[in-house]
């Protein structure tokens, strides 16, 4: 028998996706933060044309107070001053790029701009094209902070690399090669570990994967082979869809969109079957991999059951998830479908474009065949805290999968806080993953170790 949790229909935050109001407790960077999307590619270095504090702010917020992931800071910057504001900064940018070539060693440089050049109208394209003509591996993307957040910036940077660097490379399709567009590097605290696990799963059913970002990617060679992939896999509720459509148009490449990143065996099995069918892989191979993985997975879950079944009373049963759409959806599905917890509040804070929101809501309405959940969209931390305080968590201590900003509210609600997104200020994250088979086990460990600590 299924349970459809009853929820008080409390105040929903006003949704005005076209007019974003002031934001308390920022949870993301600006478009320039996409400098880290470039830095997430092996041997690629962003060159930042912006004011003096812009690059360090985005860098530190994404790499430090977000799981203390680290990232070996080296980004050159024009540190634009009064002179560049008044007289323009194109010459200064050219000078910086020229000197960068003598100091830094990279396979590709990605010039990203901040508010200053975008407002004063520097012709960055013309500066960069001069270097491209000299066969310097370099592209540019306009990422002034007023243009949006680092999610928007990410798609701009990605498409800049595709259009200006990958270009018209060979389009001969390689069957079983897939381009993966999923979590936003650095913004998602666990992106390195997660992408590695997703790659392992896809390889397990017989695909070859261009992970493109992070340690499980070989870097620029993968980017150059993007046009040869059989298809693009967009594994996220909305991020990456624009890029996939762009690739569809540019290279006639089909794409598969799977909104929920799989966590746990039910989700992962379904995901692998769906991808396998789309890629026309022989079902037997897919099933064999799933069976082997499930054997290991359930071996561990058997052990967990000793604890989970005996400690029922002390454990939370209602939970809230606050974060980027990708993780809020993925974690909610896992906790509902695999652990049997009750969704009490789901809040998405990454400001998905208006056109994707109805589809995201629909995902939550059908979180399982017998459970439906509501979802709120707000980027403002004050409203997040207000929503959490208004939530009916029943008579047990709530479980909050949220961010460092929810520490105070968690204390007030006597909740168990597991930080799963930016800013994750009390986590140190190296290779940990939360997705797939192995990540699910880690996530269970994390949640219940937190609960037992009290």
């Amino acid at each position, binding site marked *: 028998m299924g349970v459809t949790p009853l929820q008080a229909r409390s105040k929903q935050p006003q949704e005005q996706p076209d007019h974003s109001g002031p934001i308390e407790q920022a949870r993301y960077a600006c478009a320039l933060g996409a400098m880290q999307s470039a830095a997430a590619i092996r041997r690629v270095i962003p060159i930042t044309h912006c004011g003096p504090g812009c690059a360090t702010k985005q860098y530190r*917020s994404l790499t430090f107070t977000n799981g203390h992931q680290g990232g070996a800071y080296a980004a050159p910057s024009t540190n*634009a001053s009064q002179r560049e504001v008044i007289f323009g900064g194109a010459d200064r940018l050219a000078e910086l790029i020229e000197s960068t070539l003598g100091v830094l060693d990279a396979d590709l440089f990605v010039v990203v701009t901040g508010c200053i050049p975008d407002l004063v109208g520097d012709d960055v394209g013309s500066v960069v094209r001069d270097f491209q003509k000299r066969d310097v591996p370099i592209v540019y993307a306009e990422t002034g*902070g007023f243009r949006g957040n680092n999610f928007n910036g990410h798609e701009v940077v990605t498409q800049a690399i595709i259009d200006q660097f990958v270009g018209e490379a060979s389009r001969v399709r390689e069957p079983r090669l897939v381009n993966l567009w999923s979590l936003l590097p650095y913004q998602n605290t666990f992106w390195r570990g997660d992408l590695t696990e997703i790659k392992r799963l896809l390889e397990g059913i017989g695909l070859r994967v261009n992970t493109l970002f992070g340690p499980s990617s070989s870097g620029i060679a993968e980017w150059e082979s993007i046009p040869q992939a059989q298809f693009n896999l967009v594994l996220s509720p909305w991020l990456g869809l624009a890029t996939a459509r762009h690739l569809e148009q540019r290279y006639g490449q089909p794409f598969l969109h799977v909104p929920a990143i799989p966590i746990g065996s039910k989700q992962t099995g379904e995901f692998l079957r769906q991808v396998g069918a789309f890629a026309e892989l022989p079902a037997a191979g897919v099933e064999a991999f799933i069976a082997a993985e499930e054997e290991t997975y359930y071996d561990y879950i058997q052990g967990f059951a000793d604890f989970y079944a005996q400690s029922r009373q002390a454990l939370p049963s209602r939970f809230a998830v606050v974060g980027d759409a990708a993780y809020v959806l993925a974690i909610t599905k896992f906790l509902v479908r695999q652990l049997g917890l009750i969704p009490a509040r789901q809040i998405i804070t990454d400001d998905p474009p208006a056109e994707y929101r109805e589809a995201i809501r629909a995902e939550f309405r059908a979180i399982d065949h017998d459970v439906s959940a509501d979802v709120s969209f707000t980027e403002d931390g004050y409203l997040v805290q207000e929503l959490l305080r208004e939530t009916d968590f029943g008579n047990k201590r709530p479980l909050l999968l949220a961010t460092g900003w929810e520490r105070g509210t968690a204390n007030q609600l006597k909740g168990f806080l597991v930080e799963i997104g930016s800013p994750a200020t009390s986590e140190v994250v190296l290779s940990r993953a939360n997705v797939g088979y192995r990540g699910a086990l880690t996530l269970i460990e994390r949640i219940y170790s937190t609960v037992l600590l009290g």
Partner: protein
Amino acid sequence: MTINLRTAVVENREQRLGTIIGWDGKATELAEHSGYSASDCRSSCGSGKNGKLCELQGPFTQGAGCAEQIVEYQASHVRDAVLIYHSPVGCSAGQAGTNVSYRACTVRRGQIPTDAIGISTNLGERDMVYGGVEKLREAIHMAWERHRPNAVFIATSCATGIIGDDVESVTRDCEEEFGIPIVPVFCEGFKSKHWSSGFDAIQHAILRQIVRRNPPRKQEDLINVFVLSGTDIYTPMLANLGLRVNLVVNVATVENLAQLSEAAASTSFCYSLASYFGAALEQEFGVPEIKSPPPYGFAGTDAWLRAIAKVTNREEQAERFIASEHARVLPKLRQRLTGVKGYVAMGEGFAHGVIAALRELGVTLDGSLMYHHDPVYDNPDKQRDTLGHLIDTYGDIEHLSVANGQPYQLFNLLKRVNPDFIVIRHGGLSPLASRLGVAALPLEGDSNLPVGYQGLIDLGEEILSVLAQRKFHEDLAAHTTLPYKKSWLEQRDPFALAREAI
């Protein structure tokens, strides 16, 4: 060096003090070329005995800091105030980090941790065209409705500076409406080459709109101490002189700021940070600034305490305290650090103090990186010439470099002096030092650790533990690939690119 509180915007450091961010040479040369020892030399550059201070400027630069970051770190740490970032959302990207530091500081000061409150006006493309002042008004109303603060600070940004938002028209309206100080802080990053201008911007704003003019009472036992987010070591120390301490700006209340004009004197542990505040309080509010070297090591701390005692007529108590501290601390400092070689990389005023403490501990130090250099401070009293004090008391520094925290220079800087450890402030450089195999002691959390007599003991202990951590750094260095060209890593002169450019 004129201080003018009538204008909303403070003159930046390069205009007031002749601040530079690129230089390389001996400490004695730098002192000779700077304002305390040679007059009228700051505006032009050249060679010659009488000292022209020449700034090295190269074509290659990496991301630095901006004035707005400093304002964020100070204004959002005022306990009963709200900071509004009048900017696109990226300017507040550091908010979570600022909050971590705020919460840690409240704990250090014995308070229950709460969050530092900041609101971004979140300006978008449309606002760049039509102006952002209405969003600013919305944010100020939001701050009032949500938090009932005792003051609201508005940090401006490069974007609002370029589009020319009339911030003051909004803040004046709102001040009238809510009856609390609504304080614009003009700190557009592009307007100064060095982030320390942010200290001046926030201090200027506080002096204009929060500090009480013509206070009805004076508090003759109150000393203003300008701090960052360190432990309160000053209250127990100055209690020995029968003095109370007004710690500002970090984790102060708006009332702490208002009563700055009532104190008997002002001082700090870092004159880069405190230059503007101290001079302006003296000039505009009659609160004298303590004229002495900063309180590091025996020499500095003795002189600092005596200068405070003189201004507050507590000389006897001071001498008793100094004698008892010497008796307590001296025996604990055996020469365990003799022969160990250190390097200091941090903001200038702080660096001068830490170098003094290291040299008293017996550490060999023949190189230091300072993130900027102020040829003079706002109060040009010779007693506050911290570089001069350092050289006179402890001797020259062979390789004194001024550079704005540029990672690419760190290899060559460290290779030149080959230290056993580095004391360092500000993110970015210490991980790199450790990738190079040099044990790094970051003074990020508790900036007051090396201050005063006890600071000698605590700093010494930290160095010993950091030397032990060398195993980690050396292992890391053996497995590190850096993104720099071999030719650059082999370059012996950290300023080669700048010298080529001259």
